[in-house]
């Protein structure tokens, strides 16, 4: 069953000098119980995509088109109130990028979690507190820390609190926006473990946003590679790791050190990601692409399916 289907989603940031084309014609879908990794360089529009779906856009975000179908319902048509009450946090919640600051600095963590529960469910305060303690246990903080303030917790525990808060209403889908950056390696591993356990225990669907391909490989079933506001390659994780087709994906995977694999020279991608205010015409990757052809400079390549159900690539090299 398809949980979330995003079709041709386009979202621009309105700025003084025009539009920042941060999400351009993005499509993907997610089965229930599956996890999708969204990978790409910094600034390519990963967070923007999540914000657009969650309807958390700040004042200057403009959705220009597309469809978001969640559980068979078109989210873009739904009114704000209902979305707030019944969808966001209840059905799909989010672990924000930089979760260290996502907690209110002078509110007890228990209160912050209960607040989320009480806003969406008609249960008594006591029940909410009970559930919050259970959640804290679940993520490995321990219910006894329910009265702590964020500053009394370590970074890893704070991150776990944020995860617990995201789980507050038993959502079907969680967006995790770089849940482990800003943590040190050991704590990263611990938090990752917690996330994986939760996926198993609760049969969670996740959209994992990260530029850490290794982490995505560990936690996700599918992966979408984003470049400059567009998804350039999409498919299941093993296929893409084994046989990346898009030149950008190839470079990206090479640029990542592999702990297990043989020692290779790390590749770097020459040049800089484009300015999304004025993205290059044609394929947005062509200025940095070693295989760029004439057509790449003129026409935007459409995503095309390659072998089988999942794998699709937007590149003229592939296909015909």
């Amino acid at each position, binding site marked *: 069953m398809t949980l979330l289907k995003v079709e041709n989603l386009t979202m621009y940031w309105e*700025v*003084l000098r025009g539009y920042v084309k941060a999400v351009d014609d993005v499509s993907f879908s997610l089965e229930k119980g599956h996890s999708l990794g969204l990978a790409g360089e910094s600034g390519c529009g990963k967070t923007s995509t999540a914000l657009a779906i969650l309807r958390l856009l700040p*004042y*200057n975000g403009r959705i220009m088109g597309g469809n978001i179908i969640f559980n068979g319902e078109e989210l873009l048509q739904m009114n704000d109130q209902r979305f707030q009450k019944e969808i966001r946090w209840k059905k799909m919640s989010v672990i924000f990028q930089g979760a260290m600051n996502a907690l209110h600095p002078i509110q007890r963590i228990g209160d912050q979690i209960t607040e989320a529960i009480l806003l969406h469910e008609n249960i008594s305060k006591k029940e909410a507190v009970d559930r919050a303690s259970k959640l804290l246990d679940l993520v490995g903080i321990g219910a006894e820390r329910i009265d702590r303030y964020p500053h009394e917790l370590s970074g890893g525990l704070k991150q776990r609190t944020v995860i617990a808060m995201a789980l507050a209403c038993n959502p079907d889908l969680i967006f995790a926006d770089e849940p482990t950056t800003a943590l040190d390696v050991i704590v990263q591993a611990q938090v990752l473990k917690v996330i994986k356990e939760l996926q198993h225990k609760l049969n969670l669907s996740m959209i994992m946003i990260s530029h850490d391909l290794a982490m995505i490989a560990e936690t996700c079933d599918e992966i979408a590679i984003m470049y400059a506001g567009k998804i350039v390659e999409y498919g299941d994780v093993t296929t893409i790791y084994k046989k990346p087709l898009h030149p950008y994906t190839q470079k990206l995977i090479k640029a990542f050190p592999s702990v297990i694999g043989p020692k290779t020279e790390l590749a770097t991608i020459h040049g800089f990601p484009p300015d999304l205010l004025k993205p290059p015409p044609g394929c947005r990757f062509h200025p940095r692409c070693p295989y760029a052809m004439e057509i790449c400079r003129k026409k935007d390549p459409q995503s095309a399916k390659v072998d089988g159900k999942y794998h699709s690539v937007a590149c003229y090299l592939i296909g015909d």
Partner: protein
Amino acid sequence: MALFRKEKRTIYVRKIKNFWEEFSHNRIGLAGIGILIFYVMVAVFTPYISPMRPTSQEYNPPRSAAMYAMPEWVRIFPQFQDLPPSFEVRLLENVTLVNSTVTDRATLQFDKEALNITFHADAEEEEGSILLHLTAFSYVYAPPSDFKLTTVYYETGNQIRYEIDLFLTTDQQNDIWDEWLEDPTRAVLYTNDRKVTRYPSVDKKIRRSLYAGLMNEQLFAWQYPNDAVQYAFLHPSEMLLSKKGSYDFYLEIKFNSLASTSTCNIHIDTAEVKFFGDVWGLLGSDRVGHDVWAQLIYGVRISLIVGSLAAVLSSVLGISFGVIAGYSGGRTDQIIMRGVDVLLCLPVLPILLILSSYWSFNVYYVILLIAIFGWQGLSRIVRSKVLSLKEVPFIESARAAGATSGYIMTRHIIPNVLPVVMAAMVLAVPGAILTEAALSFLGFGDPSVPTWGRMLYRSRTQGGFESLAWWYVIPPGLAITFLCLAFVFIGHALDEIVNPRLRRRR
């Protein structure tokens, strides 16, 4: 090394350029800079903008206008059309002989500067009179509230009695005013019909001068330089200059010899009437008739000096103490921060007041005191910034590389602290200006400099309110306000630039 330095310089140049780029988009900041430039220009060109210098009230300098004269331009309003401006009439400018009964025995010399009359008598009880037309002027205003007549004359003579009468006539009304010159020792009240005679002293040149003036229709003062006696009596100017029209001054001298050979010489070298206007200049006058515009314009310099000096001093103190406290930590930090706690608990203005009531300070001491009591807030900000900077890798590595504390403080810490505290430093300027203004306003400032606070103090204590002298109340207040606003605007803009989250959305 040289290369390194050059690179560093270009970094600074670029930083400054970026900064200016940011600043030039900030309208409030630009408005602040604009106002400030305006004030600085006024301070630079002060003598050209106000040709008059402000006079202090400590001695009695010549006044320019009547008490609380309105600004000259109010005459465009019909109800103030008739108010007289300041002007003077020189009586000896254009003397003509009207009539003389003694042409053979009297000699008469006059030019624009002086008038010289000599009279001989060959017999006892010989009489003679000379009538001179001094000057004509037209008076087209409402009766003046304040004027002053000054005559300076020498006399030499022998065995003769004379009378000098000064007449003021008009075509509407005859003989409305005469004025008598009289013996200083016997100067008493004058009425319109009393004529006083005097005997010249024997062969002795005496210079006497005589002032007559009228202020607010109340005070009629005669003043002799020798003994400075003043007499007052009611002398409504309406009697003298009640009508618009042309007026003439006449001088009549009557002689009466007491012996068979007698001579008399009278030499008048100053004779003028000054009308102190009820309108004056751009901004009228104060309680003692001094120009308000001059005080206002010269106040710019003082306020700029007070504000910037005090702010610079207190910034230096605040940054030094903050950096030292934050960088050294430990006991030094404890001591300095406790000192800051103490200073923050002191009621600063009351202490400044008591100190300036002990020693009547000049303005530089006031600046110093303001700085001494004004650095604590800044030092707290600086300290917390330094504490966070101390952990930054490049400073740790500099320390590890063996750089001395002094080097690290001056090369690394202070340049990084400055942008953060810039806003606070700029905002210290209006703080200092307002404190000085408060001191002066309470009458505890430096009495010798023309500050806006002092103007407001005088407007309040010298009847400016009762006289509704808005030109003495509002301009200095506005001047303080806008000068402070300039710095507040700039400080606000800096705050927005340095603190990116406050940055205006574009």
